[in-house]
C-alpha cells in the first residue's frame, strides 16, 4: 500500500510544482497568455496577478499532497485532478483579467536567410542514447537466446510476486524492447515533424527537451523489462532510476525554460486566435508559438495538422493498448480442453450451492442422457480455490468435470467459501474446517441429489488434498452420499505434511541455501507452535494463515480412524511424483484400509499433486506449465463410479 503512495508521490510533486510554475513558464513578455508591456509584467499589476494565482492554488496543492498520504486508494486520482482543475480555472480567470493590458500585436515577421544545414540531424542525435540502450538489450537477448526459459514472469504485483507471464517467442521476448524502441522512435518522428513544421524560434530547445527527455526514462525501463527473461531486478532499481531521472528532468526543464522564455513572442495575427486555438489558412506553419501556457500549439487550418493529431491519437492509444498487453504478460489462464473432453456429450449450467449468507456460485456439468446418471461433487484442497482449482494454467477440477461428464457422470463444482467470501472469512477467529469445507460439501451433495436427471442414490464425493483428508468427516455428515473418492488425500495432521513440503523444497537443486535453511527452521518453529497449541490459546495470533481455533479443532480428528468405520465404497488414489501429499500418506491409507473390501487403492507413477503427468522430480515450478489431469486416472474414477 505504501508502495503505491510512494510511487504516486514523485509524479504528484512534479505536477504540483509544474502547476505553480505554469504562469512563469511562457515568454517573459507574457502575462497569462497576453503580451503586455514590461512595466505591467514586472510591475505591481503583474505581481499581484501572479501572487493571486499562487495564493489561491496553494491550498489545493497542500490538500492534494496530504491526501496522497491519507486518502483511500480509490480516491487517489482526485489528488492530481483537483489542483489541476483549480489551476485551469485560475489560469482562465487571470487571462481574462490580463487582457486589459494587452499590447497591440506587431505585424512584422522576420526570417534569417542563413541555411540550417545539419541542425536537425544533430538534434535528432539526442534520441540516440536511449535507442542504443534498447537495441543493446535486444542484442543481448538475441545472443543469449538459448538461456531464455520457456516461460518467464513478465509482470509483478506490488509485493514483487509474479502475476503475468510471457513465453519464449519473438513476441514474448522482444515485445517490450520493440515497444520501447517504438515509443522513442515515435517521439523522434514527432520532433522531426514539429521542427520542420514550425518557425525557427527559441522554443526549439524546449520542444526537443520535452520530446527527447522521456526516452531517457522509457529506454532504461523498457531495457529492464526486456531483460526480464534473464534477470529479475529488485524493486529498488526502479526507485533509483526514478530518483535519478526526476531531478535530472527538473534541472533540464528549468534550464530549457530559462533559455526559451527570454525570446520574443512569435508574430501571429490576433484575429486568428480563438481562445487558445490558432486557425490561419494563410500560414503554412503547422505549429506556432502558443499564446497560453508553454510550448507550441497547432495551426488548425492545416489539414496536415488534423492528420498528424489523428496519427498521434491513434499511435498513443495503440501503444497504450499494446503496452498493457505486452508488459502485463498473459495471466496464465490459457486452459484448453483436454483431448478426452467431448463437448457434445455434456452441457453445463450455473447452480447455487447452499442458501443465505454463504451461498456459493457453482457449475453443474451434466452428460446428455435419457436415464438418470450418477454424480460427483468435487471438494477443493487447501487455500482459497475457485471451482476449477485454477493454478497458473492448470484447471484440474475443470478437467475432471469435463472428463467425467464425457463418460456419463454429472459433476458439481463450486467456488470455495474462502475464495468467494475471503475478506469476511479472514476475520472469523473461530473458523474451522466445518465452515471452510465440510458444510458446503454436505450442501452440495443435497443439491446434486435433487437435480433433474441425477440418480440420488449414486452421488459421490471427490476430495482433493485437504478435501481427501476431510473425506471421512464429510461422509459422516452426508449419510446420503453413496461413497467417496480421495485424490492425493492427506492422511496425517496438516502441520506434518506442511513441514515435509518445505523440507522437500529445500532439498531441490538450488533450494539448499542458507536462507532456505533459515526459512525451514523458522517454519519448523511455527509448526512446533501449532503442535504446542492448547485449548485456551484461542486468542493467540494466526499461525501459518489460520487462527489457533482452526488448528485446535482438528486436534481430535484422525482421518484414518474415521475412514475405518466407513462401510460405503472408498476409492483412494495417489500420484507417486506428488511432493505435497506423498507416498508416505498413501502408505498410511494402504496400511490402515488395505484389507477393507469396500476400499480400492491405486497409485500412479507419473502423476504429481494435480494428477498431471510429468517426469523426474516434481517441482513447484511444474504447476506453471499447463497440463491436464491424466486420462488414465479419469478413466479409473469413471469406471469405479459407474460400477457402484
Amino acid at each position, binding site marked *: 500500500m505504501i508502495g503505491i503512495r510512494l510511487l504516486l508521490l514523485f509524479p504528484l510533486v512534479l505536477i504540483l510544482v509544474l502547476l505553480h510554475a505554469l504562469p512563469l513558464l511562457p515568454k517573459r513578455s507574457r502575462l497569462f497568455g497576453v503580451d503586455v508591456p514590461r512595466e505591467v509584467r514586472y510591475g505591481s499589476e503583474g505581481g499581484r496577478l501572479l501572487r493571486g494565482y499562487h495564493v489561491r492554488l496553494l491550498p489545493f496543492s497542500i490538500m492534494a499532497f496530504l491526501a496522497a498520504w491519507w486518502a483511500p486508494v480509490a480516491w487517489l486520482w482526485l489528488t492530481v485532478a483537483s489542483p489541476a482543475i483549480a489551476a485551469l480555472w485560475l489560469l482562465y480567470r487571470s487571462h481574462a483579467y490580463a487582457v486589459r493590458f494587452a499590447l497591440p500585436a506587431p*505585424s*512584422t*515577421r*522576420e*526570417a*534569417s*536567410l*542563413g*541555411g*540550417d544545414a545539419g541542425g536537425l540531424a544533430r538534434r535528432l542525435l539526442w534520441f540516440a542514447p536511449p535507442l542504443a540502450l534498447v537495441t543493446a538489450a535486444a542484442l543481448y537477448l538475441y545472443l543469449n537466446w538459448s538461456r531464455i526459459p520457456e516461460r518467464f514472469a513478465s509482470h509483478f504485483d506490488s509485493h514483487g510476486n509474479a502475476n503475468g507471464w510471457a513465453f519464449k517467442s519473438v513476441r514474448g521476448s522482444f515485445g517490450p524492447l520493440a515497444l520501447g524502441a517504438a515509443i522513442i522512435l515515435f517521439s523522434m518522428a514527432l520532433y522531426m515533424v514539429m521542427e520542420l*513544421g*514550425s*518557425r*525557427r524560434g527559441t522554443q526549439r530547445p524546449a520542444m526537443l527537451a520535452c520530446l527527447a527527455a522521456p526516452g531517457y526514462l522509457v529506454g532504461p525501463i523498457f531495457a529492464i523489462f526486456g531483460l526480464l527473461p534473464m534477470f529479475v531486478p529488485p524493486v529498488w532499481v526502479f526507485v533509483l532510476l526514478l530518483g535519478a531521472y526526476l531531478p535530472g528532468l527538473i534541472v533540464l526543464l528549468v534550464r530549457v525554460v530559462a533559455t526559451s522564455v527570454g525570446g520574443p513572442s512569435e*508574430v*501571429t*495575427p490576433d484575429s486568428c486566435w480563438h481562445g487558445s486555438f490558432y486557425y*490561419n489558412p*494563410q*500560414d*503554412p*506553419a503547422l505549429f506556432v508559438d502558443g499564446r497560453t501556457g508553454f510550448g507550441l500549439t497547432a495551426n488548425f487550418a492545416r489539414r496536415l495538422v488534423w492528420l498528424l493529431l489523428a496519427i498521434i491519437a491513434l499511435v498513443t492509444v495503440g501503444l497504450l493498448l499494446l503496452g498493457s498487453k505486452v508488459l502485463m504478460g498473459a495471466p496464465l489462464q490459457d486452459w484448453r480442453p483436454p483431448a478426452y473432453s467431448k463437448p457434445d456429450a455434456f452441457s453445463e449450467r450455473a447452480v447455487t450451492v447452499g442458501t443465505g449468507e454463504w451461498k456459493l456460485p457453482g457449475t453443474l456439468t451434466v452428460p446428455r442422457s435419457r436415464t438418470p446418471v450418477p454424480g460427483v461433487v468435487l471438494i477443493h484442497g487447501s487455500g482459497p480455490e475457485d471451482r476449477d482449482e485454477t493454478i497458473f494454467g492448470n484447471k484440474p477440477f475443470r478437467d475432471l468435470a469435463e472428463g467425467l461428464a464425457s463418460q456419463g457422470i454429472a459433476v458439481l463444482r463450486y467456488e470455495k467459501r474462502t475464495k468467494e467470501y475471503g475478506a469476511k472469512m479472514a476475520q472469523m477467529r473461530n473458523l474451522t474446517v466445518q465452515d471452510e469445507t465440510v458444510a458446503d460439501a454436505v450442501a452440495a451433495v443435497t443439491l446434486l441429489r435433487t437435480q433433474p436427471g441425477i440418480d440420488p442414490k449414486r452421488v459421490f464425493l471427490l476430495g482433493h488434498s485437504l478435501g481427501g483428508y476431510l473425506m471421512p468427516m464429510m461422509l459422516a455428515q452426508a449419510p446420503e452420499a453413496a461413497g467417496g473418492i480421495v485424490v492425493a488425500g492427506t492422511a496425517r495432521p496438516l502441520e506434518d505434511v506442511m513441514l515435509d513440503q518445505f523440507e522437500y523444497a529445500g532439498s531441490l537443486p538450488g533450494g539448499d541455501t542458507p536462507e532456505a535453511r533459515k526459512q525451514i527452521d523458522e517454519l519448523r518453529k511455527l509448526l512446533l507452535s501449532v503442535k504446542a497449541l492448547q485449548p485456551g490459546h484461542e486468542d493467540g495470533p494466526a499461525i501459518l494463515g489460520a487462527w489457533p481455533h482452526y488448528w485446535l479443532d482438528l486436534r481430535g480428528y484422525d482421518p484414518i480412524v474415521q475412514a475405518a468405520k466407513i462401510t460405503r465404497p472408498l476409492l483412494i488414489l495417489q500420484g507417486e511424483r506428488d511432493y505435497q501429499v506423498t507416498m508416505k500418506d498413501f502408505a498410511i491409507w494402504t496400511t490402515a484400509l488395505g484389507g477393507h473390501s469396500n476400499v480400492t487403492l491405486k497409485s500412479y507413477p507419473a502423476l504429481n499433486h494435480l494428477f498431471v503427468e510429468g517426469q523426474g522430480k516434481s517441482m513447484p515450478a511444474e504447476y506453471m506449465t499447463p497440463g491436464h489431469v491424466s486420462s488414465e486416472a479419469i478413466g479409473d474414477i469413471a469406471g469405479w463410479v459407474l460400477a457402484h
Partner: protein
Amino acid sequence: MGPAPWIGIDLGSPVPAGRQIVDAIRTHLVEGELAPGDVLPSVRRLAMELGVHFNTVAQAYRQLAEEGWLDLKHGRRAIVIGRGAVGDAGADKIPYFHRRLREMVAEMRAHGVAPDSIAAELRLFAERLKS
C-alpha cells in the same frame, strides 16, 4: 562571413508580401551581405518562417533568378551567383525608377525629413553598392 542577414515583411502593409521579399533580398544582394556561393533557405523553409504561401516565395526567388542574382537549377537549392557587369538599365525602366524615387522622396519630405538628410542618405546607399 558574418551572421546570415535577416529579412522582415510587414503583414499589415498594402505592398504584396512577394514584392516585399524580393525587395528585401535584393537589398542584401546589392549591399553584398549575400555573396556569390551563399545558399538561401529552401522555398518551404522561408515560407514557413515568414508565414506566407510557398508560391509567394517561389515566385520571389524566380524573379530574383530572372534578374540574374540566383541560380535555381540545382535541385531545390537557391544559390547566389556572381552577376558580372550589368549594362545600363534600358530606357524603358528609367521612368519607373524615376517615379518610385520621386514618390519616396516626397513621402520622406511629407514626414518632415530635411532635404539635406535625404540627399545624404541617398549618397550613402548608392556608395555602399557593390555590384
